[in-house]
């Protein structure tokens, strides 16, 4: 039983996002981290491996060369091996191109479960898991707050407005999990040391049997503008006061609007 967790390297949530002149994310401008929502998928896979329901856990990423750092950090948390798909033709890849590349790489890796986070922190499209499942012709178990392997099937528990849905499909499946699976672990020192010796492969598009033309310039969509949202109402800031005074002022503000 093998799980491959797909993960994306994204700019740290706390850093300001900058764009290049052609409206691509300027990845050099900020600290890069594993997409925080993917860490839950990593945690879920490692918990299944620890529980003995899964024999091996691999990691897969598509991105520029520095994304090997994100894969190495995942390997420091646990798991067995990692694969990076990187190619100059992938610059500016949109959701469709990303899904196409991941689907093709996953076909080659052929895991029982292809597991993903519910969205990426930078784009927040939430489309890749569904697109990968559609492209591969596999069942999709999305937004799981827990993933289980039950014999030859996978099952997710999905939180809904009224309770839980339990969804099951025969393996192999594509699945995505939410931040309900449990807090992602910190890499231990021995984990970091061991990660340096775990196998990591780098594949080009040709290695997975795709040509640049298959991806139509890596995107079917085009970003035409990126700007900060405008404030809808005048903002009031409480600064440079003691915590007690800040609390009082914020509480008064809310009370004046009958919000508390």
């Amino acid at each position, binding site marked *: 039983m093998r799980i491959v967790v797909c993960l994306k390297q994204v700019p740290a949530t706390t850093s300001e996002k900058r764009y290049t002149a052609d409206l691509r994310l300027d990845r050099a401008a900020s600290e890069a981290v594993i997409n925080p929502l993917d860490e839950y998928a990593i945690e879920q896979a490692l918990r299944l491996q620890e529980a003995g329901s899964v024999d091996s856990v691999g990691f897969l990423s598509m991105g520029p060369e520095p994304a090997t750092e994100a894969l190495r950090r995942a390997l420091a948390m646990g798991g067995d091996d990692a694969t990076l798909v990187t190619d100059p033709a992938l610059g500016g890849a949109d959701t469709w191109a990303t899904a196409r590349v991941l689907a093709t790489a996953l076909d080659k890796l052929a895991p029982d479960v292809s597991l993903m986070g519910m969205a990426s922190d930078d784009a927040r499209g939430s489309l890749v898991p569904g697109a990968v499942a559609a492209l591969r012709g596999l069942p999709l178990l999305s937004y799981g707050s827990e993933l289980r392997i039950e014999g030859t099937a996978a099952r997710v528990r999905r939180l809904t407005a009224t309770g839980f849905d339990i969804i099951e499909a025969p393996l192999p499946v594509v699945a995505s999990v939410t931040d309900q699976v449990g807090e992602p672990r*910190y890499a*231990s*020192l*021995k*984990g*970091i040391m061991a990660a340096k010796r775990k196998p990591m492969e780098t594949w080009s598009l040709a290695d997975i049997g795709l040509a640049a033309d298959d991806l139509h310039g890596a995107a079917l969509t085009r970003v035409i503008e990126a700007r900060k949202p405008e404030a809808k109402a005048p903002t009031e800031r409480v600064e*440079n006061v003691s*915590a007690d005074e800040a609390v009082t002022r914020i509480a008064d503000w809310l009370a004046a609007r009958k919000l508390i």
Partner: protein
Amino acid sequence: MTYRATPDQDELRAMVRTLAEEQIAPRAAEIDAKAEFPWDLKELLAKQDLLGTSFPARFGGTELDNVSQAILVEEVARVDATTSLIPIVQKLGSLPIHIAGSAEQQARYFPRLASGEWLAAFGLTEAGAGSDVAAIRMRARRDGDGYVLSGSKRFITHGSIANLVTVFASTDPDAGRRGLSGFIVEADTPGFSAPRVEHKMGIRGSPTAELAFDDVRVPLANRLGEEGEGFAIAMATLDRSRLAIAAQAVGIAQGATDYALRYASERRQFGGRLADLQGIQFMLADMASSTEAARQLTYAAAAAVDANAPDLAYWTSSAKLIAGDTAMRVTTDAVQVLGGYGYVTEYPVERMMRDAKITQLYEGTQQIQRLIVARQLLRRAGVARP
């Protein structure tokens, strides 16, 4: 000679910083206020393999170089000095076993210490024997196939929570310091107790205990080295362990500098940011540059310990002297930058200032460090006393 961090050391720093900021920093004020040992953080550090960095890999440790060990201590101390004492004292208490322990003693104790299952403490100081180690009165009388220890120790960091204490007692009171011998005492040995814990100004979550030895029977197998080697073992331990205090002091100074910088960038007075005032800028610049100087000296000392340099005491004492004074000055300045807010417990810099003071006192006062540095200087110049 400059000390540039290797990629592995940068990675370790990033790992510990994340852990420190997310898990340790939020606990620091409470640990200080309640003066309670943070067992949860001890478990966390053990789980992340951060209590075994000074132990050989064959005993489950990670065998990091001394610069890396300094980085670990520094990053934890940057957010909480109390918690940084957990790895510091784990090493301090076990250094005598590294230095003089037999292969059998190391195999018996290192696995439990490297994993963090057991905590270690170092028992040298007595009420009447602080800097004057030769004044130790605790006795170890040979009795059949072992020794009987009687007397008491004071100011023993983690003495009340350690599972194992390396202690120094006199096997020959007439021989002064040449009559001292080292022993490994397990805390559950009958007659051993920690009757009292000090109320302290700083590092308040770290229990500093008085230890009582009421005819404690220790097997011969737990003697460290030969009879009479105790003083040399204790000094060799302190020559190396005080490096960690230098690193702790650097961490405290860095934490205070970082906090003061952030505060000065946000706080507005006289129509602008505090950080725009040159008087504040000068203070921040002094804090940052002196912390950096202390850090570089600490890493130089770490490299000297890694190389087992014959004059390593010169380096570790210099580093502890400079870093301890730097921490005291920088934290005092941080309180000054925050003004009235710096003096109240709502902000962390007053705690940092209280914590900093101990780095000028323990593992040899600053005055003792000067004596050690001077002794090394005179030896180099060929004018040492015989």
